[in-house]
């Protein structure tokens, strides 16, 4: 007995299994929904809102919203992409992002998302340029929280995969940041072999693996030639994974 059901994304029919989120079903179908706080293998937390879609006309986070039979989802529309562009921009404005000197450049998901969404023109938000701590106490790992986007991927990886609970959120609102469950990283039981410290977990250049920086030359880095999400889109037989930005959309 098949319990699969259908819903539509930008006019296309997607087949979903019970229990899947909108994002799960779209991933399987090769329809990419942009995301930053969600990553395969970790419990979705729905905090960055970059995966915002419209479900029957109302905004929802695709990574936590269950797929339901017959709903109409808007994903790749100018309005939804505009929301995402603003969210990603705000992340740039809230932290200190100096891509030319960042060792995550070229493999950074925030940067790659900005490229994918075509962010090049100025925005009206002020650059907050906060001063956030850098913890270089550990022999193998450093944290530069100036680049942290508070996605919580490290928290979930350390808690659910490593069973260590090394990271946690501290503070509120604009003062919220990632803290370590000890005096500093060196005093915690963090190890370079933790999943939380792997390159897959931190989407930006906040968790730094010492002596491993700039390991791939420019031109051969993760997102140098392929946009973020291309491997999901490659599952879709008819989709062309090359993104042309519509300048009229961005420059308005």
């Amino acid at each position: 007995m098949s319990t699969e059901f259908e819903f539509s994304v930008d006019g296309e029919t997607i087949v979903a299994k019970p229990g899947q989120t909108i994002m799960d079903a779209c991933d399987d179908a090769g329809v990419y929904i942009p995301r930053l706080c969600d990553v395969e293998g970790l419990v979705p937390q729905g905090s960055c809102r970059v995966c915002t879609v419209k479900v029957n006309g109302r905004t929802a986070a695709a990574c936590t919203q269950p797929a339901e039979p017959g709903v109409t989802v808007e994903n790749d529309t100018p309005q939804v992409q505009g929301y995402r562009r603003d969210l990603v921009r705000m992340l740039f404005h809230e932290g200190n992002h100096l891509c030319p000197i960042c060792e995550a450049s070229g493999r950074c998901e925030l940067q790659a998302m900005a490229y994918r969404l075509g962010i090049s023109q100025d925005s009206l938000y002020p650059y907050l340029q906060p001063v956030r701590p850098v913890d270089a106490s550990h022999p193998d790992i450093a944290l530069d929280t100036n680049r942290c986007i508070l996605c919580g991927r490290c928290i979930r990886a350390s808690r659910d995969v490593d069973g260590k609970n090394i990271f946690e959120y501290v503070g509120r609102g604009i003062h919220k940041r990632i803290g370590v469950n000890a005096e500093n990283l060196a005093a915690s039981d963090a190890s370079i072999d933790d999943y939380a410290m792997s390159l897959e977990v931190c989407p930006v250049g906040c968790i730094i693996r010492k002596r491993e920086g700039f390991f791939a030359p420019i031109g051969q880095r993760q997102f140098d030639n392929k946009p973020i999400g291309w491997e999901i889109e490659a599952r879709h037989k008819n989709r062309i994974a090359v993104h042309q930005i519509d300048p009229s959309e961005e420059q308005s």
Partner: protein
Amino acid sequence: MKRKKRIATVSLAGCFGCHMSLLDMDEHILELMELAEFDRSPLTDFKTFSRRCDIGVIEGGCCNEENVHTLQEFRKHCDVLVAVGQCAIMGGLPVMRNAIMHSEDPLRECLEEAYSSSAKVYNPSNQIPNDAALPLLLDKVYTCAEVVKIDYQIPGCPPTGEVLWATLAALIKGEPAPQEYHMIKYD
């Protein structure tokens, strides 16, 4: 014959890397010279505008009052302003001083670190340069778009010669600057 388009360029708080990249467009530079002439620019060494320009290319953000004045001059004298490079768009490396200097008297602390208090500095007079000819430093580094209206931003540190050529070629034709996926790089 159609008149050549006039281009002006300037480096504000930049390292001239973006200008180097402009020269790195290989043989397109010959095509560019066919289509356009350079007015106020370090390439011509003209210090002021001789006439109104079609395109102004800005490298670097604003860290002192002279930068602001120059940028305003460019806005006044150019039809289209293009901010080129991460320094012009997001402040680039100079902007690090905004974040480093969160103190009661940030600018002073920064200057003292640079000219007197740092162990690496040899400065027997212990003076911070204060010649009247030196432009006044701003409280922080500002992006170009925070100071004047910018028409296009071409990110990169620096953008490649190829991207700069594609941009100028389009603007010379009177078309909008292209913003294709492969042209957006923040490093």
